């Protein structure tokens, strides 16, 4: 196993960056396909024969049993090929069963039983010759339920919440004592609503069979668990599932697992002997896939008069599905953020008859910063300190929970540079002082933090007789730029132009990588690609120096250079294509792999940032408009300035959504979410986002991985919403601690103030 010190000590082509491709804002590898509508997403893949269309029927109760099924009318409807419920779905192994002990996912049977555990749970399935016929017939399936009263009222169940399985509160020092003895104290509670990912592409699958093999195209962030889970569900060998996910229209954590669209497409394709497509509708996505659960967060801060925190606590209450254990760890991020001798963090979980909770972009941080970073703003005001200065005064010299040194920590630089670039010095500390026409104008800021991870991954590199490098990896690109950064790493490592690189990902037959999630994708997949590229360099160099027909013959392979598709040793050179044509006309393939360093846990490795926001508040109506927004981030070496910036600004926009509009309201009478489409679940539109910019500080974190890069996919979301909320307060003097901050809530505060 490698050590962090090996990574730090060893040069590599990504670090050397001789061609300057690393960090360059090159256009997306698959961009032309996407903007011309020719990138085949799972539902648009052309199957070998005309497909049938499956439509799922969701339960219209939240909890209870199906006591009668009448599918006669649906079966008789035009074009219908099959109608399934729990009574006649093909047999599948029980949930969680693993025929292969090393499967990363067990069986996930569809239409499992008569039991309904959440509203919208797929309970019937119709296949027909067209989507229209399948949809029409799906409305003819008659299910009779014995419904129980849904237990979905989170606010009323808070007192029943217990510690999540296997977890304990983390206390350092004595929080209660420290808090009681602090001269300046803050104790407030925030609430965030249930949210949905609302990916542009709803979950969708297409499956067909070639003999005993199932070919399945689906929209998924992680390839291997999807392949294994489908094989276990179908009761076939893992190698008999070929799972592909070439293009993905957004994941955000919601596609970190498969759903019944995949299972039912594969089962129906087997039963009907023809390809079958199944997609969730936008409405079905809201209940039928995972969501970010609501939270209630109590933050207590005890400070000295100079602003140094003496006691700090964030406790989170959240919910998950009755059979689940997912916990929104909204308190965890805070453990590495600020110094304080007395610290208490923990979580409380209550199980409800709501759909499955799960990870959504920056799980933990996205919700957690919405409380703590506003609490810091409130504390700064109590202390008469600038909010930036308060954070600087609480900057820890090492990780405040475990004492580990930081691998890199440029939070203060992010805050200082952001403040300067944004014109923070023009902020009036007293709220409600700045007017522009009918708008009250205010500024707010917040810190951003998100962990960084490296997981095991493999990758293969091939070179062919034309000198084209092909990168192959069971990795995914969920819109983040994976294709592009892999091409950049390959081109830089092998010294070829980007046009000479082909990237093939999203395929279970390629060397495995963990996929996209937790902002570990680029570091993990990219480090494996670098390793494969280094191995290919070595193989090529050895091939050249041992080939009597090569001008490089008898040289030292370690001295061979790669540039402009030419390999060279001092003044001797030939093209890469010539060498391969002579020695390996069918091409040369090598693999590489990355594993976490054995000593990686000796450091606290995080990504950081500072958000600065200016908003306008209409004091008459309570409307809020974001006027400008700047994020300054420190996240290691940046592979692609363009795709990384897009990730960061995208995360910031998510923060605006969380602050101002997003959330699914639960109707407790039904146990159902009410706003089920994009006209009612309000994500920001272009007009909501003013002048927006993200700046990435120059940084290299050699302790993170061999490339010194870190993730950016979730960092932008961390803290962004809090900065908006703080700006609203600075504009008008109203604190709303129950997100989203909609005009009705703000208006109540404005009226209470006498505005």
């Amino acid at each position, binding site marked *: 196993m490698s050590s962090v010190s090996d990574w730090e000590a060893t040069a590599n082509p990504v670090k050397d960056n001789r061609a300057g491709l690393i960090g360059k804002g090159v256009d997306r590898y698959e961009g032309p396909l996407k903007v011309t509508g020719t990138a085949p997403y799972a539902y648009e893949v052309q199957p070998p024969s005309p497909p049938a269309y499956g439509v799922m029927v969701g339960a*219209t109760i939240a909890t209870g049993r199906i006591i009668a099924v009448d599918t006669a009318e649906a079966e008789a409807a*035009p074009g219908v090929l099959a109608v399934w419920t729990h009574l006649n779905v093909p047999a599948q192994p029980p949930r969680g069963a693993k025929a292969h002990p090393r499967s990363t996912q067990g069986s996930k049977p569809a239409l499992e039983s008569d039991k309904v555990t959440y509203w919208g749970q797929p309970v019937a399935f119709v296949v027909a010759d067209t989507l*229209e016929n399948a*949809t*029409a017939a799906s*409305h003819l399936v008659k299910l009779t339920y014995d419904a129980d009263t849904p237990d979905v009222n989170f606010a009323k169940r808070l007192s029943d919440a217990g510690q999540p399985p296997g977890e304990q509160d983390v206390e350092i020092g004595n929080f209660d004592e420290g808090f009681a003895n602090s001269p300046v104290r803050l104790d407030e509670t925030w609430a965030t609503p249930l949210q949905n990912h609302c990916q542009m592409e709803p979950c969708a699958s297409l499956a067909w069979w070639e003999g005993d093999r199932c070919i399945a195209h689906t929209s998924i962030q992680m390839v291997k668990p999807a392949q294994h889970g489908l094989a276990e569900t179908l009761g076939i060998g893992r190698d008999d599932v070929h799972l592909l996910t070439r293009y993905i229209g957004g994941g955000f954590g919601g596609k970190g697992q498969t759903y019944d669209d995949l299972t039912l497409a594969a089962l129906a394709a087997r039963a009907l002997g023809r390809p079958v497509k199944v997609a969730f509708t936008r*409405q079905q996505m809201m209940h039928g896939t995972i969501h970010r659960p609501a939270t209630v967060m109590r933050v207590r801060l005890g400070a000295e008069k100079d602003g140094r925190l003496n006691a700090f606590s964030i406790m989170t209450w959240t919910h998950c599905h009755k059979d689940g254990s997912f916990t929104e760890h909204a308190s965890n991020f805070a453990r590495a953020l600020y110094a304080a001798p007395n610290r208490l963090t923990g979580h409380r979980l209550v199980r409800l008859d709501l759909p499955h909770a799960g990870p959504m972009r920056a799980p933990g941080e996205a919700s957690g910063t919405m409380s703590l970073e506003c609490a810091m703003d409130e504390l700064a005001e109590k202390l008469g300190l600038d909010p930036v200065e308060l954070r600087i005064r609480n900057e820890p010299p090492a990780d405040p929970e475990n004492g580990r040194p930081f691998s890199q920590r440029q939070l203060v630089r992010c805050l200082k540079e952001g403040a300067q670039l944004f014109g923070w010095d023009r902020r009036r500390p007293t709220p409600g002082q700045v007017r522009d026409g*009918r708008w009250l104008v205010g500024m707010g800021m917040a810190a951003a933090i998100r962990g960084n991870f490296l997981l095991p991954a493999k990758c293969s590199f091939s070179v062919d007789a034309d000198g084209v490098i092909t990168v192959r990896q069971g990795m995914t690109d969920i819109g983040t730029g994976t294709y592009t950064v892999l091409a950049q790493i390959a081109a830089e490592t092998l010294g070829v132009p980007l046009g000479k690189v082909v990237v093939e990902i999203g395929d279970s037959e390629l060397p495995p990588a963990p996929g996209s999630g937790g902002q570990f994708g680029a570091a993990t997949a990219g480090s494996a690609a670098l390793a494969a590229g280094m191995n290919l360099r070595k193989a090529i160099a050895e091939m050249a120096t041992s080939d009597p027909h090569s001008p490089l013959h008898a040289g030292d392979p370690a001295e061979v250079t790669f540039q402009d598709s030419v390999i060279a040793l001092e003044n001797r050179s030939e093209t890469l294509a010539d060498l391969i044509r002579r020695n390996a006309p069918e091409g040369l393939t090598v693999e590489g792999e990355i594993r976490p360093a054995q000593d990686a846990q000796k450091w606290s490795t995080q990504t950081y940032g500072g958000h600065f926001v200016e908003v306008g508040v209409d004091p*008459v*109506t*309570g*409307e809020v*408009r974001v006027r400008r927004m700047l994020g300054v981030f420190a996240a290691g070496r940046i592979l692609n300035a363009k795709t990384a910036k897009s990730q960061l600004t995208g995360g910031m926009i998510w923060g605006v959504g969380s602050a*101002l*509009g997003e959330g699914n*309201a639960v*109707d407790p*009478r*039904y146990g*159902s979410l*009410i*706003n*089920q*489409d994009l*006209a*009612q679940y*309000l994500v*920001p*539109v*272009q*007009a*909501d986002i003013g002048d927006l910019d993200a700046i990435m500080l120059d940084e290299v974190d050699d302790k993170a991985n061999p490339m010194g890069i870190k993730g950016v996919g979730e960092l932008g979301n961390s803290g962004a919403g809090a900065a908006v909320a703080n700006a609203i307060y600075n504009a008008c003097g109203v604190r709303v601690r129950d997100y989203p901050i*909609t*005009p*009705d809530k703000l*208006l*109540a505060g404005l*009226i209470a103030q006498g505005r």
Partner: protein
Amino acid sequence: MKAFTYERATSVEGAVTAAQAPGARFIAGGTNLLDLMKLEIETPTHLIDVGRLPMAEIVETPDGGLRIGASASNTAVASNATVRARYPVLSEAIVAGGSPQLRNKASVGGNLLQRTRCAYFYDTSKPCNKRAPGSGCGALEGLNRNAAIFGASHACIATHTSDMAVALAALGASVEVVGAGGTHSIPLLELHRLPGETPHIETHLAGGELITAVVLPPPPKGGQTYRKVRDRASYAGGLASVAVAGGQVALGMVAHKPWRAAEAEGALASGASPAEAIGKELAGASSLGRNDFKIPLVARLAAAAITEAKEQGQ
């Protein structure tokens, strides 16, 4: 979506005749109807496309008003030079609705007949008297933050969500209608109904009647303005809106129809301040808890808009 037949009308008379068939519906831009058909909230068996009938003209009338053909696109009306110069409240209201893509496609007639955005109307698994008469109102004791504060009934608390109609109400527009019995004119304020016991019947149009034009009288003296409050800056239904044209005031998203604020107008005419005047109107408002905020919101928004229009007019 259920199977349906389609014809493209070639004349107004032909369209009206075809519309007598049961299950027939007119379609123009289709920006609302197609969504409703996909969700099977509406299940017409026959569509009569009136979008290409020659009724997109916008022409001045001899009395100094304006006649707007019903198939003119929302964008065409909002960008019309006469509308912008003499009826700016109408232009402002139209661009406050939908998105540019929707406004390019949506017709004037269709805009008036768009259906409510109440979440319970859209969710076919929930009761809704408007969608399924007699099934009950899911919103009444549900998540009804955006419910009506004027003229609601226990059967329905939904609001009409057109922005354009609010401006037309303030301007005193009327609609020209062609039916089996010939052509007649209906004041815009009498086009839409309050929900009563029959919220599924939304207008006073007889079966098969087609709106062919909207007719505006000459603009009233004084300033004009449209203000809309919504949860995001674009592509969102309003929480409340107000259109002011001189001394004429209409409110939007507060009732099952565009709401002309007659009480407020009367008070303004007798010298009341904008705040006092809208207060008189809101004396007749009622709310259900979650939508309580709409009363102070309308009070503040309307007072500001009336003041703004007054200043403009001076």
